[in-house]
């Protein structure tokens, strides 16, 4: 079927319109379009968004295929309404050479559920000592433009400075996992009232904020742009706000879980709530929502971090850090940002598709829903409410903090360049 007519969808949450897909592109957008020769998708009441783009996903392949593969991860992405994901470099082997990034890129293309854009490591082996061959990764078939040691912080100020400078040559960006390593030795959760009671090693906000402060100043000094991964504290928001007001070229992301969950949940000692950076306080959550609404934080990124059951079914200290997020991200954003009146659906499209595509230079993604554009689209039933059931996840892992929690919204259809990857909530 080459033509698809999406009938009566609220495009970016606006007035109902019909959208006609012909082949891989959007042919026409308007009211009362003819359905002749087209498969019709009735979309009355649903919201149509540009396909979501995740700048921060862990696909685990190569090396940890027991937790996720490019196939299962991109199926999870399509389920969650994504048409492009950026795959983090902390695989085994690390994605610090052209060979590894090309492999990941090709797997994504072969499976066809979602474009996979590999992120290259900043330093060899994520060890923070020696720059990886950033240029070679950029020039490879994968065309890497985003570099990150995520999972680890590029804590050496000189290495960070050089990386920021070096990627300017080809318009790349360094995405920093802001975590001062000495301040977070043995860290298990946010340092504060709850950690004091539970006797778990503290991960202080200042360990994130001090690195962000340093890096925005470095970016200013060398005239580079810098991206801050998973910003999690109210203090970090203030630093980024200040940096933007000075004209520093900084962008920042927040994860869905940091918009919803707090460190109070750690009282259960259930490692499903163990994540890095850790869940913070109510005050941080509210500051992050406000910052995402006013544009201080540019985008939502999932930090989808799959782990096998045994790595979470244990005592807190022994458990792995991270949560899966691709399949719940949009629901959490609806719950925390849309249903609270902080963001419109157009604002959601901006922060979950347009801006992340722009930061990562994902060609053909994050485009307007208009004629001539690539047909990367996501249709959302925003009236739906239901309990999260991890058994239904497409991801190979189930480490979600939302099991049994009622969340709004459900992605019913996803199209990648006109090809449906999700139909009526089912993967094709």
């Amino acid at each position, binding site marked *: 079927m080459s033509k698809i007519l999406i009938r009566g969808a609220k495009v970016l949450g606006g007035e109902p319109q019909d959208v006609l897909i012909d082949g891989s592109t959007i042919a026409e957008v308007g009211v009362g379009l003819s359905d002749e020769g087209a498969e019709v998708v009735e979309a009355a009441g649903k919201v149509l968004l540009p396909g979501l783009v995740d700048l921060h996903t862990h696909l685990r392949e190569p090396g940890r295929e027991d937790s996720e593969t490019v196939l299962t991860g991109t199926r999870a992405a399509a389920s969650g309404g994504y048409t492009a994901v950026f795959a983090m470099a902390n695989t085994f082997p690390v994605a610090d050479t052209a060979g590894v990034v090309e492999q990941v890129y090709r797997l994504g293309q072969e499976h066809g559920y979602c474009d996979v854009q590999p992120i290259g490591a900043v330093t060899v082996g994520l060890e923070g000592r020696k720059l990886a061959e950033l240029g070679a990764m950029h020039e490879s078939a994968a065309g890497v433009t985003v570099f990150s040691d995520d999972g680890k912080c590029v804590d050496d100020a000189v290495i960070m400075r050089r990386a920021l400078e070096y990627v300017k040559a080809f318009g790349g960006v360094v995405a920093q996992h802001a975590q001062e390593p000495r301040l977070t030795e043995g860290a298990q959760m946010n340092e504060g009232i709850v950690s004091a009671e539970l*006797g778990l090693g503290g991960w202080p906000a200042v360990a994130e904020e001090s690195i962000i402060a340093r890096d925005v100043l470095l970016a200013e000094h060398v005239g580079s742009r810098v991206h801050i991964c998973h910003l999690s504290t109210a203090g970090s928001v203030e630093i980024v706000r200040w940096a933007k007001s000075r004209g520093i070229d900084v962008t920042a992301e927040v994860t869905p879980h940091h918009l919803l969950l707090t460190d109070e949940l750690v009282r259960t000692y259930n490692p499903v709530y163990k994540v890095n950076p850790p869940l913070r306080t109510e005050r941080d959550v509210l500051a992050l929502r406000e910052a995402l609404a006013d544009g201080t934080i540019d985008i939502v990124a999932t930090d989808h971090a799959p782990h096998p059951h045994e790595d979470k079914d244990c005592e*807190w200290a022994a458990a792995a850090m991270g949560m899966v997020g691709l399949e719940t991200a949009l629901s959490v954003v609806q719950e925390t940002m849309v249903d609270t009146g902080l963001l419109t659906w157009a604002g959601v499209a901006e922060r979950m598709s347009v801006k992340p595509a722009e930061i990562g230079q994902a060609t053909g993604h994050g485009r307007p829903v208009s004629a001539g554009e690539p047909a990367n689209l996501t249709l959302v039933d925003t009236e739906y409410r239901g309990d999260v059931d991890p058994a239904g996840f497409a991801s190979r892992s189930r480490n979600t903090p939302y099991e049994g929690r009622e969340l709004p919204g459900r992605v019913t259809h996803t199209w990648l360049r006109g090809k449906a990857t999700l139909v009526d909530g089912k993967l094709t």
Partner: protein
Amino acid sequence: MQRHLISAADLTRDDAVLILDTAEEMARVADRPIKKLPTLRGRTIVNLFFEDSTRTRISFEAAEKRLSADVINFTAKGSSVSKGESLKDTAQTLEAMGVDAVVIRHGASGAPYRLATSGWIDAAVINAGDGTHQHPTQALLDAFTMRRRLIGRDAGLGQDLSGKRITIVGDVLHSRVARSNVDLLHTLGAEVTLVAPPTLVPVGVETWPCEVSYDLDSTLAKSDAVMMLRVQRERMNAAFFPTEREYSRRYGLDGERMAKMPEHAIVMHPGPMVRGMEITAEVADSDRCTVVEQVANGVSIRMAVLYLLLGGNEPAVSHTRIEEK
């Protein structure tokens, strides 16, 4: 109703007083020719120790044996645990053997809570110290020692520690004993002051039901009991304090400082003591120091806890925090 003892914060005032009163009766068993009761005959208790702690383990073991329970000791060293077996697998293996209760010591904060609430096992869980979180039976035996010394063996029955001023000195940050004591002593109506260098007090302590001071000398004169915590020498390498000498000078308890305490006041220590560091030999060996009594009282307290949790068809101690699934 709760079948477990995980945190001193879970105990109500009445629960705590009931445990202390029961321990007084248990203590009398030690004076009999036959120091044994048939109460837990046919019940199997495993002492599951992932951390070395000979004194806590033998204290529990003595208590279990005096109540006629069958005791299995399991230490992680040299066992399958050191070969990578998980806490869950270990616990399930023990449960398959028909264990009624697990007394667990673990280096990870929250491990006993996890064991009690994860659905891995059905046995009752008693926390014998987890990471830097809690050590509830230690807090109970400390409270028992204070009540005996400050109120009296018989006069103390049915009483809490209302109005008693307790000072806890040392490495609060890394101390499960301090956390448990703050919770329990507050529940029992005592006024607690923590004294430590600021580096050894956790961020977030401001919400604890106690005072915090950095000055030992100014608190001594108004203390009914001073509890010294062990300070590990290795802390100095992580810059928590400059030198052992400086720590002792500012926060150590010596004869001169002890003389500033009221005449009735006692000196406590959970053991093992680092003599010369947090406490001088003169203080440790004085009549006011209750270290040896604390050990004896530990057996009575643990007998009381075991009886109240396992002696019937359901526990006599009610808990508020943990909800059973």
